[in-house]
Every structure is written in C-alpha cells, then in structure tokens.
C-alpha cells in the first residue's frame, strides 16, 4: 500500500478521551502499512507529543514506575514515526503553533514540527483521504 497518503486532524489532549486512543490505533495501522501520514494536532492535541510527559508509580495498582509502565502518548507517537519509516512511509506530525504557545507546550519530541491551519489544508489537498477526530 506504499504511496498512499492519509491526513488526520486531532483535537483532544492526552489522557482524557478514548477518541485519542482510537486515533492512535488508526494512525498505527497506517504506519504499519507504510502510508505517508500527516497529523495536524489542533488545540489540546498539541499536548500529545509533549516531551515532558513522565511515567509514575501507581499505589492503587500496587506497582512501581517500571512495572506500571504508564502509557505516554509521546512514546506512542515516536514509535509510530519509527514504524512508518521502517515500512517505507512517514509520519509528519504538525503541532498548531498558536495552540502550542497558549499551552506552553513548546517542548515536543523530535520529529514534531510547528505549523498552522494552512498546513492542514495543504496536506488534505494532496492526500487520499482525511479524517477529523474533534473534541466533543
């Protein structure tokens, strides 16, 4: 399926909505299939690749940090970038710049770039399909 292009627009922040997990599942499938993927992270979604996300222990679960292995969206994104590349595709993650500024989310993982709504439009114009997963 190499050569196929998909664009996603996401809005939800990390750790708050199952919609984000669903979006990640879809992006992961596309990465495994070697698609060229563009993600435009809008509003709270710019927190998904925030570099300072940290794992923690969970006393309720009775587990220390390593055993708990708390999921971190930034790690998911980094892994999907690697996976896409491994399969001949790419994952271009664009954080909405103004959304980053108002959240102080400038420290993103490597490979994330700053952009603006026209980048979403540009990607959508050259893509096979576009999926918007907005906040409800």
């Amino acid at each position, binding site marked *: 399926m190499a050569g196929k292009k998909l664009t996603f*627009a996401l*809005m939800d922040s990390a750790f708050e909505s199952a919609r984000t997990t669903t979006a990640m599942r879809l992006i992961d499938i596309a990465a495994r299939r070697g698609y060229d993927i563009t993600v435009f992270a*809008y*509003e709270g979604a710019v927190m998904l690749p925030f570099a300072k996300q940290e794992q923690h222990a969970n006393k309720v679960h009775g587990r220390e940090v390593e055993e708990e292995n708390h999921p971190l969206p930034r790690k998911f994104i980094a892994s999907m970038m690697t996976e896409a590349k491994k399969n001949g595709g790419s994952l271009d993650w664009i954080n909405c710049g103004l959304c980053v500024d108002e959240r102080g989310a400038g420290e993103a993982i490597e490979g994330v770039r700053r952009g*603006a*709504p*026209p980048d*979403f*439009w*540009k990607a*959508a*114009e050259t893509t096979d399909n*576009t999926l*918007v997963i*907005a*906040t*409800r």
Partner: protein
Amino acid sequence: MKALNIIETAYRATIEEQDDTVVWLTHAMKGAGADLSVLLRGNAVNYAVKTQDASGLSFGDTKQTQPPRLAEDITRLIGKGVEVYIVEEDVAERGLERTDLIDGLKPVPRAGMPKLFAGFDRVWHW
C-alpha cells in the same frame, strides 16, 4: 478541492479561545486560499444569533476584555466568500426565528444534507 466543515459541538472553548476554534480554523484556511464552506447544525446554529453577548466575565480582578463574538465571526466568514449553511429544523427546534439570525446564511433542511455533502470533495465533522 472543496471541503465542508460541519460545526455541531457548540461553544467549545469559546471563552478561552475568544472564538469558535473551527470557525477560526476556517478563517485561517480561507485566508490561505482554501475553498471551504461551513454547515451549522445542532446547538451550533446559535452561533448565528445576532443578539448573543458573552461579555462581562471576570474572575477576581481578571477580566475577559475580548469575549467571543461568534455572530460577527460568521458574518465575516460570509463576507470572505465562505458559504455558511444552517439546518432549518435545528433553528426551529430552538425557537429561533429567521429574524433572530444574521444575514447571508443558506438554510438547508435535514433531508437536504446528503445532497449538500455530495457537492464537496471532503466533509469534515468537527
């Protein structure tokens, strides 16, 4: 490419963002040459109500001096050449009269939405 932005979730972050995020996004993309239209449905039909006023909010000494002005934002979109459709039944169900709304809207019945969608290359439900 022609795209339709459907706005249904209303007043999502409008106080903090000073606008509706998808109306703003539409302004920004239109400014970059995008061929976009908007469909207001559900509670978002209220964005077209002329007399809404979100001013006056304050927390302690901190005042929100620039409240969202959604009807004005929609009017400016129309002024830029963005067609703004509004679902007739959603307007009527909320007790709104045509005279309550800004000018330039394109009413569409619910049953007419599939035909409307067919006129676009992309339909994005925000």
